[in-house]
Protein backbone atom coordinates (compact mmCIF):
# COMPACT_ATOMS: atom_id res chain seq x y z
CA UNK A 1 0.00 0.00 0.00
CA UNK A 2 1.34 3.40 -0.87
CA UNK A 3 1.96 5.99 1.74
CA UNK A 4 -0.66 8.26 0.30
CA UNK A 5 -3.29 5.56 0.50
CA UNK A 6 -2.46 4.91 4.10
CA UNK A 7 -2.80 8.57 4.93
CA UNK A 8 -6.16 8.67 3.23
CA UNK A 9 -7.35 5.68 5.21
CA UNK A 10 -6.25 7.16 8.49
CA UNK A 11 -7.98 10.37 7.56
CA UNK A 12 -11.18 8.51 6.75
CA UNK A 13 -10.94 6.48 9.92
CA UNK A 14 -10.56 9.66 11.96
CA UNK A 15 -13.50 11.21 10.24
CA UNK A 16 -15.72 8.25 11.07
CA UNK A 17 -14.49 7.84 14.60
CA UNK A 18 -16.58 10.55 16.15
CA UNK A 19 -19.85 9.90 14.43
CA UNK A 20 -22.79 8.47 16.33
CA UNK A 21 -24.98 5.57 15.29
CA UNK A 22 -27.45 7.71 13.33
CA UNK A 23 -24.69 9.34 11.33
CA UNK A 24 -23.20 5.95 10.54
CA UNK A 25 -26.55 4.67 9.31
CA UNK A 26 -27.10 7.75 7.20
CA UNK A 27 -23.61 7.49 5.65
CA UNK A 28 -24.13 3.83 4.78
CA UNK A 29 -27.61 4.55 3.47
CA UNK A 30 -26.23 7.13 1.05
CA UNK A 31 -23.97 4.49 -0.52
CA UNK A 32 -27.07 2.94 -2.04
CA UNK A 33 -27.56 4.96 -5.22
CA UNK A 34 -30.96 3.47 -6.02
CA UNK A 35 -32.22 4.00 -2.51
CA UNK A 36 -31.10 7.61 -2.62
CA UNK A 37 -33.04 8.20 -5.82
CA UNK A 38 -36.00 6.29 -4.38
CA UNK A 39 -35.97 8.45 -1.29
CA UNK A 40 -36.01 11.63 -3.37
CA UNK A 41 -38.83 10.30 -5.55
CA UNK A 42 -40.82 9.25 -2.52
CA UNK A 43 -40.33 12.55 -0.75
CA UNK A 44 -41.49 14.37 -3.90
CA UNK A 45 -44.54 12.15 -4.24
CA UNK A 46 -45.39 12.47 -0.56
CA UNK A 47 -45.13 16.24 -0.60
CA UNK A 48 -47.22 16.37 -3.77
CA UNK A 49 -49.82 14.24 -2.02
CA UNK A 50 -49.71 16.32 1.14
CA UNK A 51 -49.97 19.56 -0.77
CA UNK A 52 -52.69 18.23 -3.07
CA UNK A 53 -55.30 20.83 -2.05
CA UNK A 54 -52.93 23.58 -3.15
CA UNK A 55 -51.35 21.91 -6.18
CA UNK A 56 -54.38 20.32 -7.77
CA UNK A 57 -55.75 22.49 -10.55
CA UNK A 58 -59.35 21.30 -10.05
CA UNK A 59 -61.40 19.83 -7.22
CA UNK A 60 -60.96 16.06 -7.53
CA UNK A 61 -64.58 14.96 -7.28
CA UNK A 62 -66.23 17.55 -9.47
CA UNK A 63 -67.08 17.41 -13.13
CA UNK A 64 -64.94 20.07 -14.70
CA UNK A 65 -64.56 19.12 -18.35
CA UNK A 66 -65.95 17.02 -21.15
CA UNK A 67 -66.18 13.22 -20.87
CA UNK A 68 -62.99 11.22 -21.37
CA UNK A 69 -61.04 13.89 -23.18
CA UNK A 70 -57.40 13.19 -24.01
CA UNK A 71 -54.60 15.11 -22.22
CA UNK A 72 -54.48 18.75 -23.19
CA UNK A 73 -53.02 21.94 -21.74
CA UNK A 74 -56.12 22.48 -19.58
CA UNK A 75 -56.26 18.89 -18.38
CA UNK A 76 -52.65 17.65 -18.21
CA UNK A 77 -53.64 14.00 -17.90
CA UNK A 78 -57.02 14.26 -19.54
CA UNK A 79 -60.41 13.72 -17.92
CA UNK A 80 -62.20 10.52 -16.94
CA UNK A 81 -65.47 9.12 -18.24
CA UNK A 82 -67.59 11.57 -16.30
CA UNK A 83 -65.38 14.59 -16.88
CA UNK A 84 -63.23 14.80 -13.71
CA UNK A 85 -59.62 15.96 -13.98
CA UNK A 86 -57.33 12.91 -13.87
CA UNK A 87 -54.28 14.82 -12.62
CA UNK A 88 -56.16 16.28 -9.64
CA UNK A 89 -57.67 12.91 -8.84
CA UNK A 90 -54.22 11.33 -9.03
CA UNK A 91 -52.85 13.71 -6.42
CA UNK A 92 -55.70 12.95 -4.03
CA UNK A 93 -55.43 9.23 -4.81
CA UNK A 94 -51.78 9.31 -3.72
CA UNK A 95 -52.90 10.75 -0.38
CA UNK A 96 -55.34 7.94 0.16
CA UNK A 97 -52.94 5.20 -0.94
CA UNK A 98 -50.09 6.45 1.22
CA UNK A 99 -52.45 6.91 4.16
CA UNK A 100 -53.66 3.34 3.78
CA UNK A 101 -50.11 2.05 3.47
CA UNK A 102 -48.80 3.89 6.52
CA UNK A 103 -51.79 3.44 8.82
CA UNK A 104 -52.22 -0.25 8.03
CA UNK A 105 -48.51 -0.76 8.67
CA UNK A 106 -48.70 1.18 11.92
CA UNK A 107 -51.57 -0.96 13.19
CA UNK A 108 -50.02 -4.25 12.14
CA UNK A 109 -46.62 -3.27 13.54
CA UNK A 110 -48.05 -2.37 16.93
CA UNK A 111 -50.02 -5.62 17.12
CA UNK A 112 -47.12 -7.70 15.80
CA UNK A 113 -44.53 -6.17 18.12
CA UNK A 114 -46.69 -6.54 21.22
CA UNK A 115 -47.62 -10.15 20.53
CA UNK A 116 -44.08 -11.02 19.46
CA UNK A 117 -42.56 -9.50 22.59
CA UNK A 118 -44.99 -11.26 24.89
CA UNK A 119 -44.69 -14.62 23.13
CA UNK A 120 -40.91 -14.50 22.96
CA UNK A 121 -40.29 -13.28 26.47
CA UNK A 122 -42.70 -15.40 28.45
CA UNK A 123 -42.56 -18.54 26.33
CA UNK A 124 -44.38 -21.67 27.37
CA UNK A 125 -48.15 -21.77 27.09
CA UNK A 126 -48.48 -18.06 26.28
CA UNK A 127 -46.03 -18.43 23.41
CA UNK A 128 -47.85 -21.53 22.16
CA UNK A 129 -51.27 -19.86 22.14
CA UNK A 130 -50.08 -16.67 20.48
CA UNK A 131 -48.02 -18.43 17.83
CA UNK A 132 -50.78 -20.89 16.91
CA UNK A 133 -53.13 -17.95 16.53
CA UNK A 134 -50.50 -16.30 14.33
CA UNK A 135 -50.17 -19.44 12.22
CA UNK A 136 -53.94 -19.51 11.86
CA UNK A 137 -54.07 -15.95 10.53
CA UNK A 138 -51.10 -16.67 8.28
CA UNK A 139 -52.49 -19.83 6.78
CA UNK A 140 -55.80 -18.19 5.94
CA UNK A 141 -56.09 -17.20 2.28
CA UNK A 142 -56.22 -13.62 3.27
CA UNK A 143 -57.61 -12.04 0.14
CA UNK A 144 -60.68 -14.13 0.92
CA UNK A 145 -60.69 -12.91 4.51
CA UNK A 146 -60.41 -9.35 3.29
CA UNK A 147 -63.21 -9.84 0.78
CA UNK A 148 -65.49 -11.36 3.41
CA UNK A 149 -64.67 -8.61 5.89
CA UNK A 150 -65.17 -5.98 3.22
CA UNK A 151 -68.59 -7.37 2.39
CA UNK A 152 -69.67 -7.61 6.06
CA UNK A 153 -68.52 -4.15 7.09
CA UNK A 154 -69.32 -1.10 5.05
CA UNK A 155 -66.50 -0.74 2.55
CA UNK A 156 -64.57 2.47 2.89
CA UNK A 157 -61.25 4.03 3.72
CA UNK A 158 -61.05 3.18 7.43
CA UNK A 159 -62.55 -0.25 6.98
CA UNK A 160 -59.78 -1.16 4.59
CA UNK A 161 -57.09 0.32 6.80
CA UNK A 162 -58.33 -1.71 9.76
CA UNK A 163 -58.72 -4.87 7.72
CA UNK A 164 -55.22 -4.65 6.26
CA UNK A 165 -53.81 -3.72 9.66
CA UNK A 166 -55.33 -6.77 11.30
CA UNK A 167 -54.16 -9.09 8.55
CA UNK A 168 -50.54 -8.05 8.06
CA UNK A 169 -49.18 -8.50 11.59
CA UNK A 170 -48.21 -12.22 11.74
CA UNK A 171 -44.96 -11.66 9.86
CA UNK A 172 -43.85 -8.99 12.30
CA UNK A 173 -44.96 -11.03 15.29
CA UNK A 174 -42.81 -13.96 14.15
CA UNK A 175 -39.85 -11.75 13.42
CA UNK A 176 -40.01 -10.05 16.80
CA UNK A 177 -40.56 -13.30 18.67
CA UNK A 178 -37.51 -14.85 17.04
CA UNK A 179 -35.34 -11.90 18.03
CA UNK A 180 -36.71 -11.78 21.55
CA UNK A 181 -36.00 -15.49 22.05
CA UNK A 182 -32.37 -14.70 21.34
CA UNK A 183 -32.21 -11.49 23.31
CA UNK A 184 -33.86 -12.77 26.46
CA UNK A 185 -31.03 -15.26 26.93
CA UNK A 186 -28.42 -12.56 26.45
CA UNK A 187 -26.35 -11.40 29.36
CA UNK A 188 -27.46 -7.81 29.23
CA UNK A 189 -31.07 -8.81 29.75
CA UNK A 190 -29.93 -11.03 32.60
CA UNK A 191 -27.94 -8.22 34.11
CA UNK A 192 -30.97 -5.98 34.02
CA UNK A 193 -32.94 -8.69 35.79
CA UNK A 194 -30.13 -8.92 38.30
CA UNK A 195 -30.23 -5.15 38.62
CA UNK A 196 -33.87 -5.56 39.62
CA UNK A 197 -35.27 -3.63 36.66
CA UNK A 198 -39.07 -3.84 36.31
CA UNK A 199 -40.46 -6.07 33.57
CA UNK A 200 -41.85 -3.14 31.61
CA UNK A 201 -38.39 -1.63 31.47
CA UNK A 202 -36.80 -4.88 30.33
CA UNK A 203 -39.33 -5.48 27.57
CA UNK A 204 -39.59 -2.00 26.14
CA UNK A 205 -36.31 -0.34 27.07
CA UNK A 206 -33.84 -3.21 26.84
CA UNK A 207 -35.19 -5.74 24.35
CA UNK A 208 -37.28 -3.64 21.97
CA UNK A 209 -34.56 -1.13 20.97
CA UNK A 210 -32.36 -4.06 19.99
CA UNK A 211 -34.89 -5.33 17.53
CA UNK A 212 -36.00 -2.04 15.99
CA UNK A 213 -33.78 -2.40 12.91
CA UNK A 214 -35.34 -5.61 11.55
CA UNK A 215 -38.82 -4.32 12.40
CA UNK A 216 -38.17 -1.14 10.45
CA UNK A 217 -36.95 -3.08 7.44
CA UNK A 218 -39.89 -5.46 7.55
CA UNK A 219 -42.31 -2.57 7.98
CA UNK A 220 -41.20 -0.97 4.72
CA UNK A 221 -42.23 -4.09 2.85
CA UNK A 222 -45.56 -4.07 4.70
CA UNK A 223 -46.15 -0.49 3.55
CA UNK A 224 -45.55 -1.54 -0.05
CA UNK A 225 -47.78 -4.61 0.35
CA UNK A 226 -50.58 -2.61 1.93
CA UNK A 227 -50.54 -0.14 -0.94
CA UNK A 228 -50.74 -3.04 -3.40
CA UNK A 229 -53.54 -4.68 -1.42
CA UNK A 230 -55.51 -1.46 -1.29
CA UNK A 231 -55.12 -1.14 -5.03
CA UNK A 232 -56.27 -4.72 -5.57
CA UNK A 233 -59.28 -4.36 -3.27
CA UNK A 234 -60.31 -1.02 -4.70
CA UNK A 235 -59.91 -2.44 -8.18
CA UNK A 236 -62.37 -5.16 -7.18
CA UNK A 237 -64.71 -2.51 -5.78
CA UNK A 238 -64.31 -3.64 -2.16
CA UNK A 239 -61.92 -0.92 -1.10
CA UNK A 240 -62.06 2.83 -1.13
CA UNK A 241 -65.44 3.83 -2.54
CA UNK A 242 -65.92 6.37 -5.32
CA UNK A 243 -66.15 9.29 -5.61
CA UNK A 244 -63.09 9.30 -3.30
CA UNK A 245 -60.13 8.59 -5.55
CA UNK A 246 -57.53 5.96 -4.74
CA UNK A 247 -54.89 4.54 -7.05
CA UNK A 248 -56.77 1.25 -7.06
CA UNK A 249 -60.24 2.52 -7.93
CA UNK A 250 -58.80 4.76 -10.64
CA UNK A 251 -57.49 1.59 -12.23
CA UNK A 252 -60.98 0.22 -11.93
CA UNK A 253 -61.85 2.05 -15.12
CA UNK A 254 -59.50 -0.20 -17.04
CA UNK A 255 -61.96 -3.03 -16.55
CA UNK A 256 -63.74 -1.79 -19.64
CA UNK A 257 -62.19 -2.70 -22.96
CA UNK A 258 -62.65 0.71 -24.52
CA UNK A 259 -60.76 2.38 -21.73
CA UNK A 260 -58.00 -0.24 -21.87
CA UNK A 261 -57.43 0.15 -25.59
CA UNK A 262 -58.53 3.68 -26.40
CA UNK A 263 -58.03 5.79 -23.28
CA UNK A 264 -54.63 4.91 -21.79
CA UNK A 265 -54.44 8.25 -19.85
CA UNK A 266 -57.06 6.85 -17.48
CA UNK A 267 -55.09 3.85 -16.30
CA UNK A 268 -51.43 4.31 -17.18
CA UNK A 269 -50.69 7.11 -14.65
CA UNK A 270 -52.19 5.40 -11.57
CA UNK A 271 -50.69 2.06 -12.56
CA UNK A 272 -47.31 3.68 -13.10
CA UNK A 273 -47.50 5.49 -9.77
CA UNK A 274 -48.26 2.26 -7.90
CA UNK A 275 -45.22 0.62 -9.47
CA UNK A 276 -42.97 3.60 -8.70
CA UNK A 277 -44.08 3.88 -5.08
CA UNK A 278 -43.79 0.17 -4.36
CA UNK A 279 -40.37 -0.14 -6.00
CA UNK A 280 -39.07 2.97 -4.22
CA UNK A 281 -40.24 1.70 -0.84
CA UNK A 282 -38.64 -1.68 -1.45
CA UNK A 283 -35.31 -0.15 -2.44
CA UNK A 284 -35.36 1.98 0.68
CA UNK A 285 -36.08 -1.10 2.77
CA UNK A 286 -33.12 -2.87 1.17
CA UNK A 287 -30.77 0.02 1.85
CA UNK A 288 -32.06 0.32 5.41
CA UNK A 289 -31.33 -3.33 6.03
CA UNK A 290 -27.73 -2.92 4.93
CA UNK A 291 -27.28 0.39 6.70
CA UNK A 292 -28.72 -0.73 10.03
CA UNK A 293 -26.77 -3.96 10.17
CA UNK A 294 -23.70 -3.25 12.30
CA UNK A 295 -21.83 -6.23 10.86
CA UNK A 296 -21.55 -4.78 7.35
CA UNK A 297 -18.40 -2.75 7.20
CA UNK A 298 -18.14 -1.79 3.55
CA UNK A 299 -16.67 1.68 3.29
CA UNK A 300 -16.68 2.38 -0.42
Amino acid sequence: MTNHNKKMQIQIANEYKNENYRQTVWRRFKHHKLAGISLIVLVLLCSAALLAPWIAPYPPDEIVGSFASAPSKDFWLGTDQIGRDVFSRLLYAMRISLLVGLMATLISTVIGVLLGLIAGYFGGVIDMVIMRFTDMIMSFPYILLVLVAASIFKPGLWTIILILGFVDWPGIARLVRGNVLNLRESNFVKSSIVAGMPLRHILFSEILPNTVAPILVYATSVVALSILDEAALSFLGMGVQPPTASLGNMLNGAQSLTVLTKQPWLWVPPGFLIIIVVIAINFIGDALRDALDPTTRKEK
Partner: protein
Amino acid sequence: MSHILEVKGLTTAFTGDYGTDITVDHVDFYVDRGEVVCIVGESGCGKSVTSLSIMGLLNRGGAVIDGSVLFDGKNLLGLTEKELDEIRGNRMTMIFQDPLTSLNPVFTIGSQITESIRIHQKLEKEESRKRAIQILQKVGMPDAEAAMKKYPHTLSGGMRQRAMIAMALSCQPALIIADEPTTALDVTIQAQIMKQLQELQKELGMAMILITHDIGLVARMADRVYVMYAGQMIEHAQVKDLFLAPKHPYTKALLATVPGIYDSPERKLASITGVVPEKYDTIQGCRFADRCPYMKEKCLTYEDNEILENGHEVRCCRVGEWEAS
Protein backbone atom coordinates in the same frame (compact mmCIF):
# COMPACT_ATOMS: atom_id res chain seq x y z
CA MET B 1 -24.30 -11.41 63.76
CA SER B 2 -26.30 -13.45 61.31
CA HIS B 3 -25.01 -14.32 57.86
CA ILE B 4 -25.94 -12.03 55.01
CA LEU B 5 -26.42 -15.04 52.77
CA GLU B 6 -26.96 -18.59 53.87
CA VAL B 7 -27.50 -21.37 51.39
CA LYS B 8 -28.79 -24.65 52.76
CA GLY B 9 -29.09 -27.88 50.82
CA LEU B 10 -29.44 -26.06 47.50
CA THR B 11 -30.22 -28.57 44.77
CA THR B 12 -30.68 -27.52 41.17
CA ALA B 13 -31.78 -29.80 38.37
CA PHE B 14 -31.93 -29.40 34.62
CA THR B 15 -34.52 -31.29 32.68
CA GLY B 16 -33.64 -31.98 29.08
CA ASP B 17 -34.53 -34.46 26.37
CA TYR B 18 -32.55 -37.21 28.06
CA GLY B 19 -33.96 -36.89 31.54
CA THR B 20 -33.02 -34.89 34.58
CA ASP B 21 -29.51 -33.94 35.65
CA ILE B 22 -28.84 -32.69 39.13
CA THR B 23 -26.12 -30.13 38.57
CA VAL B 24 -25.91 -28.69 42.05
CA ASP B 25 -26.33 -31.27 44.78
CA HIS B 26 -27.18 -30.23 48.34
CA VAL B 27 -24.78 -27.34 48.47
CA ASP B 28 -24.38 -25.55 51.81
CA PHE B 29 -22.48 -22.36 52.35
CA TYR B 30 -22.73 -18.98 53.96
CA VAL B 31 -21.35 -15.50 53.53
CA ASP B 32 -20.92 -12.97 56.32
CA ARG B 33 -21.20 -9.22 56.00
CA GLY B 34 -18.13 -7.59 54.52
CA GLU B 35 -16.21 -10.75 53.73
CA VAL B 36 -15.00 -12.21 50.47
CA VAL B 37 -15.86 -15.83 49.86
CA CYS B 38 -14.40 -17.69 46.91
CA ILE B 39 -15.92 -20.67 45.19
CA VAL B 40 -13.33 -22.53 43.15
CA GLY B 41 -13.52 -25.51 40.89
CA GLU B 42 -12.99 -26.74 37.37
CA SER B 43 -15.27 -25.88 34.47
CA GLY B 44 -18.53 -27.75 34.56
CA CYS B 45 -18.66 -28.43 38.27
CA GLY B 46 -21.68 -26.25 38.98
CA LYS B 47 -20.17 -22.97 40.18
CA SER B 48 -22.11 -20.74 37.83
CA VAL B 49 -25.33 -22.69 38.23
CA THR B 50 -25.06 -22.16 41.98
CA SER B 51 -24.87 -18.40 41.53
CA LEU B 52 -27.66 -18.34 38.96
CA SER B 53 -29.84 -20.37 41.33
CA ILE B 54 -29.29 -17.83 44.08
CA MET B 55 -30.18 -14.99 41.74
CA GLY B 56 -33.23 -16.76 40.34
CA LEU B 57 -31.84 -16.59 36.82
CA LEU B 58 -31.85 -20.20 35.71
CA ASN B 59 -32.51 -20.78 32.03
CA ARG B 60 -35.52 -22.67 30.80
CA GLY B 61 -35.37 -26.26 31.93
CA GLY B 62 -33.47 -25.45 35.11
CA ALA B 63 -35.08 -25.33 38.51
CA VAL B 64 -34.17 -25.36 42.16
CA ILE B 65 -35.77 -28.53 43.49
CA ASP B 66 -34.64 -28.43 47.09
CA GLY B 67 -33.02 -26.28 49.73
CA SER B 68 -33.23 -22.67 50.74
CA VAL B 69 -31.39 -19.44 50.05
CA LEU B 70 -31.62 -17.10 53.01
CA PHE B 71 -30.69 -13.54 52.24
CA ASP B 72 -30.72 -11.45 55.40
CA GLY B 73 -32.94 -14.11 56.91
CA LYS B 74 -35.47 -14.08 54.06
CA ASN B 75 -35.84 -17.11 51.82
CA LEU B 76 -35.34 -15.88 48.24
CA LEU B 77 -36.77 -19.04 46.74
CA GLY B 78 -40.23 -18.30 48.07
CA LEU B 79 -40.45 -14.75 46.73
CA THR B 80 -42.37 -13.55 43.71
CA GLU B 81 -40.51 -11.90 40.82
CA LYS B 82 -41.68 -8.52 42.03
CA GLU B 83 -40.39 -9.06 45.56
CA LEU B 84 -37.14 -10.38 44.09
CA ASP B 85 -36.74 -7.23 42.01
CA GLU B 86 -36.78 -5.24 45.25
CA ILE B 87 -33.75 -7.19 46.47
CA ARG B 88 -31.89 -7.69 43.22
CA GLY B 89 -30.01 -4.59 42.24
CA ASN B 90 -30.70 -2.81 45.51
CA ARG B 91 -29.30 -5.25 48.04
CA MET B 92 -27.68 -7.99 45.99
CA THR B 93 -26.27 -7.95 42.51
CA MET B 94 -24.07 -9.87 40.13
CA ILE B 95 -21.20 -9.23 37.73
CA PHE B 96 -21.06 -11.51 34.73
CA GLN B 97 -18.13 -13.11 32.97
CA ASP B 98 -18.39 -11.45 29.60
CA PRO B 99 -18.65 -7.68 29.85
CA LEU B 100 -19.43 -7.16 26.17
CA THR B 101 -22.65 -9.12 26.12
CA SER B 102 -23.64 -7.89 29.56
CA LEU B 103 -24.10 -4.32 28.39
CA ASN B 104 -26.97 -3.37 26.13
CA PRO B 105 -25.39 -2.58 22.74
CA VAL B 106 -27.84 0.13 21.73
CA PHE B 107 -27.42 2.42 24.72
CA THR B 108 -24.50 4.45 25.99
CA ILE B 109 -22.73 3.41 29.18
CA GLY B 110 -23.99 6.55 30.85
CA SER B 111 -27.64 6.02 30.07
CA GLN B 112 -27.49 2.45 31.34
CA ILE B 113 -25.94 3.34 34.67
CA THR B 114 -28.11 6.43 35.09
CA GLU B 115 -31.26 4.44 34.40
CA SER B 116 -30.33 1.86 36.99
CA ILE B 117 -29.73 4.54 39.62
CA ARG B 118 -32.89 6.42 38.68
CA ILE B 119 -35.10 3.34 39.04
CA HIS B 120 -33.63 2.07 42.29
CA GLN B 121 -32.79 5.19 44.19
CA LYS B 122 -35.72 7.20 42.84
CA LEU B 123 -33.45 10.12 42.08
CA GLU B 124 -33.91 12.90 39.55
CA LYS B 125 -32.22 12.55 36.19
CA GLU B 126 -29.53 15.14 36.77
CA GLU B 127 -28.77 13.79 40.22
CA SER B 128 -28.49 10.23 38.85
CA ARG B 129 -26.14 11.39 36.14
CA LYS B 130 -23.84 12.99 38.69
CA ARG B 131 -23.80 9.84 40.75
CA ALA B 132 -23.09 7.74 37.65
CA ILE B 133 -20.03 9.86 36.85
CA GLN B 134 -18.84 9.57 40.45
CA ILE B 135 -19.13 5.81 40.36
CA LEU B 136 -17.34 5.56 37.04
CA GLN B 137 -14.50 7.58 38.49
CA LYS B 138 -14.45 5.31 41.49
CA VAL B 139 -13.98 2.18 39.41
CA GLY B 140 -11.05 3.83 37.66
CA MET B 141 -12.65 4.77 34.36
CA PRO B 142 -10.37 7.36 32.77
CA ASP B 143 -12.25 10.48 31.69
CA ALA B 144 -15.53 9.32 33.17
CA GLU B 145 -17.54 12.16 31.72
CA ALA B 146 -16.57 11.28 28.15
CA ALA B 147 -17.06 7.56 28.81
CA MET B 148 -20.69 8.26 29.76
CA LYS B 149 -21.43 9.07 26.13
CA LYS B 150 -19.77 5.96 24.68
CA TYR B 151 -21.38 2.79 23.40
CA PRO B 152 -20.19 -0.53 24.82
CA HIS B 153 -18.59 -1.72 21.57
CA THR B 154 -16.32 1.30 21.41
CA LEU B 155 -14.74 0.49 24.78
CA SER B 156 -11.96 -2.00 25.46
CA GLY B 157 -12.66 -5.13 27.46
CA GLY B 158 -11.20 -3.69 30.62
CA MET B 159 -13.23 -0.49 30.31
CA ARG B 160 -16.39 -2.49 29.71
CA GLN B 161 -15.82 -4.54 32.81
CA ARG B 162 -15.26 -1.33 34.77
CA ALA B 163 -18.55 -0.04 33.43
CA MET B 164 -20.24 -3.31 34.46
CA ILE B 165 -18.79 -3.05 37.95
CA ALA B 166 -19.89 0.57 38.16
CA MET B 167 -23.40 -0.50 37.22
CA ALA B 168 -23.40 -3.26 39.81
CA LEU B 169 -22.13 -0.95 42.53
CA SER B 170 -24.39 1.94 41.59
CA CYS B 171 -26.91 1.06 44.26
CA GLN B 172 -24.41 0.03 46.93
CA PRO B 173 -25.61 -3.54 47.40
CA ALA B 174 -24.83 -5.52 50.53
CA LEU B 175 -23.78 -8.57 48.51
CA ILE B 176 -22.19 -8.85 45.12
CA ILE B 177 -21.69 -12.08 43.22
CA ALA B 178 -18.83 -11.91 40.76
CA ASP B 179 -18.88 -14.83 38.35
CA GLU B 180 -15.38 -15.03 36.91
CA PRO B 181 -15.31 -11.26 36.46
CA THR B 182 -11.89 -11.14 34.86
CA THR B 183 -11.78 -14.31 32.80
CA ALA B 184 -12.20 -12.40 29.54
CA LEU B 185 -9.43 -9.93 30.34
CA ASP B 186 -5.67 -10.07 30.10
CA VAL B 187 -3.54 -10.48 33.19
CA THR B 188 -2.44 -6.88 33.72
CA ILE B 189 -5.94 -5.48 33.43
CA GLN B 190 -7.20 -8.33 35.58
CA ALA B 191 -4.82 -7.34 38.37
CA GLN B 192 -5.88 -3.69 38.19
CA ILE B 193 -9.58 -4.45 38.17
CA MET B 194 -9.44 -6.98 40.97
CA LYS B 195 -7.46 -4.54 43.08
CA GLN B 196 -10.03 -1.85 42.49
CA LEU B 197 -12.88 -4.24 43.20
CA GLN B 198 -11.25 -5.29 46.45
CA GLU B 199 -10.76 -1.68 47.52
CA LEU B 200 -14.36 -0.82 46.74
CA GLN B 201 -15.54 -3.92 48.54
CA LYS B 202 -13.65 -2.83 51.68
CA GLU B 203 -14.74 0.78 51.33
CA LEU B 204 -18.43 0.03 50.89
CA GLY B 205 -18.37 -2.89 53.32
CA MET B 206 -19.98 -5.24 50.81
CA ALA B 207 -19.87 -8.99 51.04
CA MET B 208 -18.64 -10.65 47.89
CA ILE B 209 -18.86 -14.12 46.42
CA LEU B 210 -16.09 -14.56 43.90
CA ILE B 211 -16.49 -17.46 41.57
CA THR B 212 -13.30 -18.38 39.79
CA HIS B 213 -10.92 -21.09 38.71
CA ASP B 214 -7.91 -18.88 39.21
CA ILE B 215 -6.11 -20.08 42.33
CA GLY B 216 -3.86 -17.03 42.42
CA LEU B 217 -6.88 -14.78 42.62
CA VAL B 218 -8.31 -16.86 45.45
CA ALA B 219 -5.13 -16.49 47.46
CA ARG B 220 -5.21 -12.74 47.07
CA MET B 221 -8.87 -11.98 47.50
CA ALA B 222 -10.54 -14.55 49.68
CA ASP B 223 -11.27 -14.68 53.38
CA ARG B 224 -12.76 -18.13 53.11
CA VAL B 225 -12.76 -20.65 50.29
CA TYR B 226 -15.21 -23.28 49.16
CA VAL B 227 -13.93 -25.92 46.75
CA MET B 228 -16.59 -27.32 44.50
CA TYR B 229 -16.42 -30.52 42.54
CA ALA B 230 -19.11 -32.24 40.49
CA GLY B 231 -21.96 -30.31 42.04
CA GLN B 232 -20.85 -30.71 45.64
CA MET B 233 -18.86 -28.63 48.07
CA ILE B 234 -15.91 -30.85 48.90
CA GLU B 235 -13.81 -28.60 51.05
CA HIS B 236 -14.35 -25.42 53.01
CA ALA B 237 -11.71 -23.57 55.03
CA GLN B 238 -10.12 -20.26 55.88
CA VAL B 239 -7.92 -19.30 52.97
CA LYS B 240 -4.68 -19.83 54.91
CA ASP B 241 -5.64 -23.27 56.11
CA LEU B 242 -6.63 -24.31 52.66
CA PHE B 243 -3.41 -23.24 51.00
CA LEU B 244 -1.14 -24.52 53.77
CA ALA B 245 -2.83 -27.82 54.37
CA PRO B 246 -5.44 -28.92 51.87
CA LYS B 247 -7.41 -31.83 53.29
CA HIS B 248 -8.95 -33.12 50.10
CA PRO B 249 -6.88 -34.81 47.35
CA TYR B 250 -8.74 -32.71 44.75
CA THR B 251 -7.81 -29.45 46.43
CA LYS B 252 -4.23 -30.59 46.68
CA ALA B 253 -4.19 -31.49 42.99
CA LEU B 254 -5.79 -28.16 42.14
CA LEU B 255 -3.12 -26.26 44.08
CA ALA B 256 -0.41 -28.32 42.45
CA THR B 257 -1.48 -27.15 39.00
CA VAL B 258 -0.33 -23.61 39.76
CA PRO B 259 3.16 -23.01 38.42
CA GLY B 260 5.46 -21.36 40.94
CA ILE B 261 7.91 -18.59 40.20
CA TYR B 262 10.82 -20.59 41.70
CA ASP B 263 10.06 -23.76 39.77
CA SER B 264 12.96 -25.31 37.91
CA PRO B 265 12.83 -24.82 34.14
CA GLU B 266 12.42 -28.58 33.68
CA ARG B 267 9.29 -28.76 35.78
CA LYS B 268 6.32 -29.89 33.78
CA LEU B 269 2.99 -28.21 34.39
CA ALA B 270 0.90 -30.46 36.57
CA SER B 271 -2.59 -31.40 35.55
CA ILE B 272 -5.35 -33.47 37.02
CA THR B 273 -5.89 -36.45 34.78
CA GLY B 274 -9.33 -36.85 33.31
CA VAL B 275 -12.20 -34.38 33.35
CA VAL B 276 -15.18 -33.68 35.54
CA PRO B 277 -17.60 -36.50 34.74
CA GLU B 278 -20.40 -35.22 32.54
CA LYS B 279 -23.24 -36.89 34.36
CA TYR B 280 -22.18 -36.91 37.95
CA ASP B 281 -25.44 -37.09 39.86
CA THR B 282 -25.65 -40.88 39.70
CA ILE B 283 -22.12 -41.60 40.92
CA GLN B 284 -22.03 -43.68 44.09
CA GLY B 285 -19.71 -42.61 46.85
CA CYS B 286 -16.98 -40.07 46.33
CA ARG B 287 -17.36 -38.33 42.98
CA PHE B 288 -13.66 -37.67 42.63
CA ALA B 289 -12.78 -41.33 43.19
CA ASP B 290 -12.02 -42.27 39.58
CA ARG B 291 -9.51 -39.44 39.25
CA CYS B 292 -8.08 -39.71 42.73
CA PRO B 293 -4.61 -41.26 43.14
CA TYR B 294 -5.43 -42.22 46.74
CA MET B 295 -8.63 -44.08 45.96
CA LYS B 296 -9.51 -47.03 48.19
CA GLU B 297 -12.45 -49.42 48.38
CA LYS B 298 -14.37 -47.42 50.97
CA CYS B 299 -14.36 -44.30 48.82
CA LEU B 300 -17.02 -45.84 46.62
CA THR B 301 -19.65 -45.70 49.34
CA TYR B 302 -18.66 -42.56 51.26
CA GLU B 303 -21.11 -39.63 51.25
CA ASP B 304 -20.68 -37.38 54.28
CA ASN B 305 -18.82 -34.24 55.21
CA GLU B 306 -16.15 -34.42 57.87
CA ILE B 307 -15.65 -31.41 60.11
CA LEU B 308 -12.16 -30.79 61.42
CA GLU B 309 -11.06 -27.96 63.69
CA ASN B 310 -11.70 -24.26 62.82
CA GLY B 311 -14.70 -25.08 60.70
CA HIS B 312 -12.50 -26.81 58.16
CA GLU B 313 -14.87 -29.13 56.33
CA VAL B 314 -13.86 -31.94 53.99
CA ARG B 315 -15.79 -34.49 52.02
CA CYS B 316 -13.23 -37.29 51.99
CA CYS B 317 -13.25 -40.56 53.90
CA ARG B 318 -9.50 -40.89 53.97
CA VAL B 319 -8.87 -37.45 55.42
CA GLY B 320 -5.64 -37.39 57.41
CA GLU B 321 -4.83 -40.78 56.02
CA TRP B 322 -4.14 -40.19 52.30
CA GLU B 323 -1.35 -37.68 52.89
CA ALA B 324 0.77 -40.41 54.41
CA SER B 325 0.36 -42.88 51.56
